[in-house]
């Protein structure tokens, strides 16, 4: 067991803020916390411990479900903690409280039914390398948070274990920390780039990865050079804001390598994982909207998912309905899947 304290996740209606056409939604999730804990302690079970907010208005059933699925979607468990009002109402035999409690238990049971998913490996085109601690904690952890929020799928690499880290299948690696790696560690990211990967480094570390020929870089603030069969993108200015670093990293890696593309998904936290040793895939969406994302439209959850991986079937799993085979929809040259309405969570089981 690896307990990890974090803030309460979720953000249903009253907490969720959809900021309109020129802004971005704000979603609070603990899933990156759980994934970081797993990177720090490989092979351990991750338990998240946090209390629900003791606010005037108790979290509703959807908020509790989000707390459960936010952890479960990354293979972790939330140590169930009820707010005081719900606890008292349950003790008093309140029917509404009992319904909320059953909803929580049903959600836990759903993931126990699909316990194999906990073994799926989260995949993405980018490795994020950091100690995620000390001076590197803010930039490293906020990067994990904001990159995932922007649907940049990644693999977390604890800098302490970078020498033994598996970087195969990745397109890029991002060295977050401004302090340079030790001499015996340099070889790992350098080797990754020389074999064809893209290495993104802060300007304070650039001298250790001197590239060769200069290349045009469409992302402002980076010096892009060839490096063996790959490339090195060295920042030309300080990384002050993890939001911009996450955006830069996504631009440098390119969204064309995103394993999934989601339409109407700004209020969803998306997880992409692959069955160990296999080609079956799992796409999980956790809704932080708690209801209609577009009150003006009077609709919710018209989510479309597109992914390039070859597959034979896609099955939709929801918390409150039976599994449903999805039929593909053709949009030009692309195959898409249009998801039926779902409240808190949806999983697409993609069979190779």
């Amino acid at each position: 067991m690896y307990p990890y304290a974090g803030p309460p996740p979720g953000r249903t209606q009253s907490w969720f803020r959809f900021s309109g056409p020129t802004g971005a939604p704000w979603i609070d999730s603990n899933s990156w916390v759980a994934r970081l804990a797993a990177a720090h302690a490989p092979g351990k079970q991750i338990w998240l411990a946090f209390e629900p907010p003791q606010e005037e208005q108790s979290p509703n059933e959807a908020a509790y479900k989000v707390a459960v699925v936010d952890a479960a979607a990354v293979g972790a468990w939330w140590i169930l903690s009820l707010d005081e009002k719900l606890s008292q109402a349950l003790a008093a035999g309140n029917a509404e409280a009992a319904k909320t409690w059953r909803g929580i238990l049903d959600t836990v049971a759903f993931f126990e039914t699909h316990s194999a998913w906990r073994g799926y490996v989260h995949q993405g085109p980018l490795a994020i390398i950091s100690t995620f601690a000390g001076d590197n904690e803010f930039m490293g952890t906020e990067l994990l948070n904001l990159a995932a929020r922007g649907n940049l799928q990644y693999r977390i690499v604890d800098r302490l274990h970078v020498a033994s880290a598996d970087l195969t299948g990745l397109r890029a690696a991002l060295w977050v920390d401004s302090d340079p790696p030790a001499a015996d560690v340099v070889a790992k990211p350098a080797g990754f780039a020389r074999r064809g990967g893209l290495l993104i480094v802060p300007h304070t570390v650039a001298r250790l990865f001197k590239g060769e020929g200069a290349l045009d870089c469409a992302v402002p603030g980076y010096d892009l050079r060839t490096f063996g069969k790959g490339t090195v993108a060295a920042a030309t200015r300080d990384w002050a804001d993890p939001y911009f670093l996450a955006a830069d990293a996504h631009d440098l890696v390119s969204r064309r390598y995103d394993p999934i593309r989601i339409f109407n998904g700004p209020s969803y936290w998306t997880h992409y994982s692959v069955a160990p040793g296999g080609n079956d895939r799992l796409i999980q969406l956790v809704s932080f909207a708690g209801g209609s994302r577009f009150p003006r439209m009077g609709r919710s959850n018209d989510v479309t998912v597109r992914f390039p991986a070859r597959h034979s079937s896609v099955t939709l799993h929801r918390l409150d309905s039976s599994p449903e085979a999805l039929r593909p929809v053709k949009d030009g040259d692309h195959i898409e899947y249009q998801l039926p309405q779902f409240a808190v969570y949806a999983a697409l089981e993609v069979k190779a």
Partner: protein
Amino acid sequence: MTAMAHRGEIPTRRSLLKNSGLVMAGAALLPRTAWSATAPSAPVALARCDSYGAGVLPTLGKMFDQIGGIGSLVKGKTVAVKVNMTGNPDIRAGFIPIERMTFTHPDVIAATVHLLSAAGASRIRILESPQRSAGPLEEFFITAGWDPNDFIRASTGAKVEFENTNFLGFGNKYIRFPVPKGGLLFPAYDLNHSYYDCDVFVSLGKMKEHRTAGITLAIKNCFGIIPCTIYGDNAPVDEPGLVPQGGRMLIHNGNRAIPKSSPQELDPKSSRDEGYRIPRCIADLVAARPVHLSVIDGIESMNGGENSGGPENYVKPHLLVAGKNVVCTDAVGAAAMGFDPMADRGATPFERCDSTLHLAERLGVGTRDLKRIEVVGAKISEVAFDFRKSRPGPDGKPGGWPEKLNRVRPGRGAPGRG
């Protein structure tokens, strides 16, 4: 990267007015009724196009022939093509892809690139100012689900490039574009270099209703050429920002000044009503950065204004419009939408705003008077699609829009976006 505006940077290397048809001398002295009679005119091609896909290229090719061809305009030239991609690229109304409602469809972009290339253009630079992003424009396309390589492959030889013009981009300075006759909102605008480093400027707009400007066509498309590092939310006080942050509410409501390094508003005490400000800004822009070729994608679209609703706002006008004078082209486009291009504030579709067509005409860019515009190809009456009648009615059903709702009192528009 250093972002710095340069005062007094007036385009001189090429004459921005060349081929634009601008007739400015004395325009402001003419009585209102005379503007339509004296502003330049050029033929406009109108065509029905049933769907996206293979039919777009031959239809558009024929339309370019109908307006006199584009070879003499683009041969050996660098052509900048401003597309219309307003808003989040990964947001759809229901399950309908955004390019079928709000964005210029990639098939129309690709067809335009192909025809420009085939006509001899040496370089084609596709431009847009994606919101809140200093990332490559290609990434914006990919987020929308498009493949930017499709546009490269559409070219028969011209080099195809992309630039995000919402900030300094690949340039090392902003270029100042003065507005002829002094301008309506600003005397000059500081723009990304790509709007200067081109011989020919194409506005490739979308036909749709717009909450703030009434309609979006080729003129309104040009609102997106102003960089949000200067004209956008959270732009710094003194100099342009390094990256765009937010939209252009600073222009919409004028609640604060743009960075001091750029030319300031002509009259800070003028109306803050966005229905007053936005049309003036857009008219300024098409006068300052003349449009040589306008193409309007109205094959599929939306009614009711951008971001205004769901799938019930999805419409199929099946229209393409093209012309070499942006006001004339928009006038025909407006008529094909069921609107009177001679309408002014208070009348449909300008219930809440001034007419951009009128203001651009007043700046001498072109006439909006259909009696002075040669329409080639289809007749307006034969292909017109009434956007208002197609609006969903109170019951939410498409086509239920009651005529009486068009007669709303002019007033302050709802919050819009550019």
